């Protein structure tokens, strides 16, 4: 079968690879009909995530048709149309029982590797390095889905692939970030990063009752989408204005009640602040560039919430811990417990409260993956979200 594979920093190929097989009794094989490139795939593309090997199949946002089932999967049938959550979770362990699916204790066969690297292991994730399980990804014609009795959700006919696909990751991710803010009437929520997760965080904050949602980015096309499609009331272009001053002005000096970091480890900033982390990461003195996170902590109103949806991989410095203590801020974070949100969010889509397909800017063939990665990484052609069809 054809699959998009990783071959080093900024090198993605599409090549013939062996088809997946059932390896555990709770596996399913899915013939993929739609798959997307996620912003977090760019961290792999840019070489930020260790333990990738040449030839690893990429992708963790996908959906398709069940073509084969292991003997332990009773809730699905061959022919079912399903969307697959990116975290792999057993459904049996103490964390799964609490619906903390991304903390599953049993789904990472290479947990020892993650423990060696980080000192702990999260759940297994499709197509996201060997230390997160070495599972093949979904940017391919077929994928093996472990614990298929827990993860995949059947998609009703009335929903198109474009409407259902993002339940695999970015819609729940943006939603969980907004939910973590415990939004109350009158709240102002600021969102750093208007990539796909940021767009869904904005839309979700609005769905959850925020009074105003402020979108922060440096690309005018992303800020336009945030305002026109996701529902942001205000936008701040950090390349042109000082973010802290703009937020103070927009909130009467209070600061936003909640701040969502939808940027993660590859943050940018103009001038010295941006150069500092660029130098430190280049010298391997820190692994991530926490520029948005620092801004969010300093800008948030006292007693407010910082919700981190962006991916961080390792270690950061100049972390303003004093501001967290002195201003009694709450930090919420976590890889998304996608399985917890898929059904309720699918319900919102069916009811017409939101159409997740608004983030799609490019529809391409799987064979176009190398160019698509390049385009998405460079933000060429106003690229925000690429959907690939095998």
């Amino acid at each position, binding site marked *: 079968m054809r699959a998009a594979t990783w071959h080093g920093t900024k090198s993605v190929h599409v090549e013939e690879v062996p088809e*997946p097989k059932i390896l*555990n009794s709770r596996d399913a094989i899915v013939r993929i009909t739609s798959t997307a490139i996620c912003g977090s795939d760019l961290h792999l593309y840019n070489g930020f995530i260790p333990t990738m090997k040449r030839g690893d*199949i990429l992708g963790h946002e996908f959906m398709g048709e069940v073509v084969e089932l292991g003997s332990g999967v009773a809730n699905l049938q061959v022919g079912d149309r399903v969307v697959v959550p990116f975290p792999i979770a057993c459904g049996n362990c103490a964390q799964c029982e609490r619906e903390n699916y991304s903390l599953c204790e049993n789904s990472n*066969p*290479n947990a020892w590797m993650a423990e*060696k690297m980080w000192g702990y292991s999260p759940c297994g994730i499709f197509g996201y390095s060997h230390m997160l*399980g070495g*599972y093949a990804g979904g940017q391919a014609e077929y994928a093996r889905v472990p614990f298929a009795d827990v993860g995949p959700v059947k998609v009703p006919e009335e929903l198109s692939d474009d409407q259902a696909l993002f339940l695999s990751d970015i819609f729940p991710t943006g939603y969980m970030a907004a939910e973590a803010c415990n939004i109350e009437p009158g709240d102002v929520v600021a969102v750093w990063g208007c990539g796909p997760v940021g767009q869904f965080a904005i839309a979700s904050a609005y769905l959850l009752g925020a009074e105003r949602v402020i979108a922060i980015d440096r690309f005018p096309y992303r800020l336009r989408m945030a305002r026109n499609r996701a529902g942001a009331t205000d936008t701040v272009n950090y390349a042109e204005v000082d973010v802290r001053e703009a937020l103070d002005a927009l909130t009467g000096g209070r600061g936003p009640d909640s701040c969502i970091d939808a940027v993660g480890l590859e943050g940018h900033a103009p001038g010295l602040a941006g150069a500092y982390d660029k130098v430190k990461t280049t010298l391997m003195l820190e692994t991530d560039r926490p520029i948005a996170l620092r801004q969010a902590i300093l800008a948030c109103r006292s007693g407010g919430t910082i919700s981190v949806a962006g991916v961080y991989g390792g270690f950061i410095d100049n972390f303003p811990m004093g501001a967290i203590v002195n201003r009694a801020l709450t930090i919420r974070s976590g890889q998304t417990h996608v399985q917890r949100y898929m059904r309720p969010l699918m319900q919102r889509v069916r009811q017409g409260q939101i159409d997740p397909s608004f983030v799609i800017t490019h529809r391409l063939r799987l064979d176009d993956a190398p160019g698509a990665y390049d385009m998405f990484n460079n933000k060429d052609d106003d690229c925000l979200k690429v959907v690939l069809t095998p």
Partner: protein
Amino acid sequence: MQYGDDTVEETIALPIALGVFSLVLGAAALVRPRGLARLIGALPDGRTTTILQASGARELASGIAILAQPKEAKWLWSRVGGDALDLATLARSARGEGPNRTRLALAAIAVVGVAALDLLAARSLSASDAAVDAQETGEQAITVKAPLEAVEAGWEQWCASRYARLASNYVVRFEPAPGARGTEVHLAGGGSKSTIREELRRFKQQLETGEISVSDGPGPRMPVEVR
């Protein structure tokens, strides 16, 4: 229970002294190679000063490494190697006309004395490294979400079906976890820390999910093969 070791301070006193000695000697050799050559009785010619400056740079590097990581045996072993080199150099310097053989002999005695201290420090650090390794293989624990009886029965089955040698190689202890958190499995015995952890993780997977999850492709292998 007590975790940690309160004898570490004593173990690193000698390495730190040797590190400081390295720095002083290294600096002297780098800055005043001719003076040092005369002191040890060698001819202060160009060749000798070059050799002394090279040794000085090596001593400085050793000193910095030891002071930065005074618990690392390898830096002390590097000093032992340096001592051997120094003795060889002194022996070479004694050849031909001109060198003061009495002073060279005294220098050699001094080097042998320091080498003995280096050896002592290196060996005692290596021994304490081994002690730390042994501690690390001491005991690992995991919590399995099942009642005590089920976990005990499961462990017996696990040992019987897959790991016949397990029962004899390891000491296992079960304790109910507080609240409804299941059962703690404490496992101690031969093998590295990661081997024991992997054993526990697989047992937990088997008991909680009914099987052991398998990766798709061949990835990097665990450095210590399980079992």
